[in-house]
């Protein structure tokens, strides 16, 4: 990767990491719980760490543990991983216009590190009116923060095992909900955007019983369709 001695680049890395801070807090309990559940589910401690290091996809990792504990076959786990991660294709399609001009040595790691959280802050950074040519350094900063945090939390979970009391009841996950809310609400200033949000919310609630995050994918698609329809209607009138 190119050197980061340029002060603007270093600044973008820093604010990318800083803006991801609440979500580090939100992801921490999941990372730790993943670490504590891994060994009882039948994964070795090095296997748990390797999974966080190479797969780096929280929901898919949890579901894999579940399937592993239930004795599922490898192809089943891989197919499930694919379905659970489908939403990332939507994220990368959305970000593509912004990264299309970058070299492969950028696009490969930025794709590898693409998560819900990083997508949330990075799309906001790309939408900002300033024409900084260094916004991919912001993206990198968010990635590095999330990645380091996820690995360290997994490590803490693996080392401490089941000795962390009530971690899942502390409500740290609220930090993620708050960040996403703070990002979404100011975007709801047009009727199509508001319609997209309402449609997505309704479908997410109705389809919340579906396994493997399928409800999330359906909700996203419903929101997009309603948003575009409202936009077309507004233009036609």
């Amino acid at each position, binding site marked *: 990767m190119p050197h980061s001695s340029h002060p603007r680049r270093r600044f973008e890395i820093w604010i990318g990491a800083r803006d991801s801070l609440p979500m580090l807090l939100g992801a921490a309990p999941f990372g730790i719980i993943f670490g504590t559940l891994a060994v009882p589910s039948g994964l070795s401690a090095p296997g748990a760490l390797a999974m966080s290091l190479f797969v780096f996809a929280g929901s898919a990792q949890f579901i894999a543990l579940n399937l592993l504990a239930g004795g599922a076959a*490898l192809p089943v786990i891989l197919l499930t991983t694919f379905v659970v991660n489908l939403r990332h294709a939507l994220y990368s399609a959305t970000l593509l216009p912004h990264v299309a001009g970058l070299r492969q040595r950028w696009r490969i790691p930025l*794709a590898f590190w693409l998560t819900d959280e990083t997508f949330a802050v990075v799309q906001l950074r790309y939408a900002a009116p300033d024409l900084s040519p260094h916004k991919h350094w912001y993206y990198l900063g968010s990635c590095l923060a999330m990645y380091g945090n996820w690995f360290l939390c997994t490590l803490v979970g693996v080392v401490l095992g089941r000795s962390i009391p009530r971690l899942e009841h502390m409500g740290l996950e609220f930090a993620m*909900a708050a960040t996403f*809310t703070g990002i979404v609400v100011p975007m709801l200033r047009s009727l199509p955007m508001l319609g997209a*949000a309402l449609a997505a*919310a309704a479908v997410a609630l109705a389809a919340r019983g579906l396994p493997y995050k399928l409800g999330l994918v359906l909700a996203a698609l419903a929101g997009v369709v309603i948003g575009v329809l409202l936009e077309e209607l507004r233009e036609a009138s």
Partner: protein
Amino acid sequence: MSGREVALIAGMTAVTFLVRYAFFALGDRLAFPPLAHRALRYVPVAVLTAIIVPMVLLPDGTHWQLTWHNAWLLGALVTGVIAWRFNHLLASITGGMLVFFFYRWVTG
């Protein structure tokens, strides 16, 4: 690590990476038609809303909690109001989290 575990992790790594990388791999060679461009602008609002709303309205994942006793709902509302009024992300997150944790602390 057993051979089966190595295969599991290698397979999951490949599948996850390919889903994330498929569009990025194309780079300049893929130009979306105008309708797709338009549609993709709604992805952030749609997907983030779809993540938040069930979390906030059913914090335990199964039971509706449409009451003032729901710290998640209260915290998210405060976050939303601050974000709408001041358009300042950090202030909205901080405000929402203060309300959320204070409320949980008070109600035990």
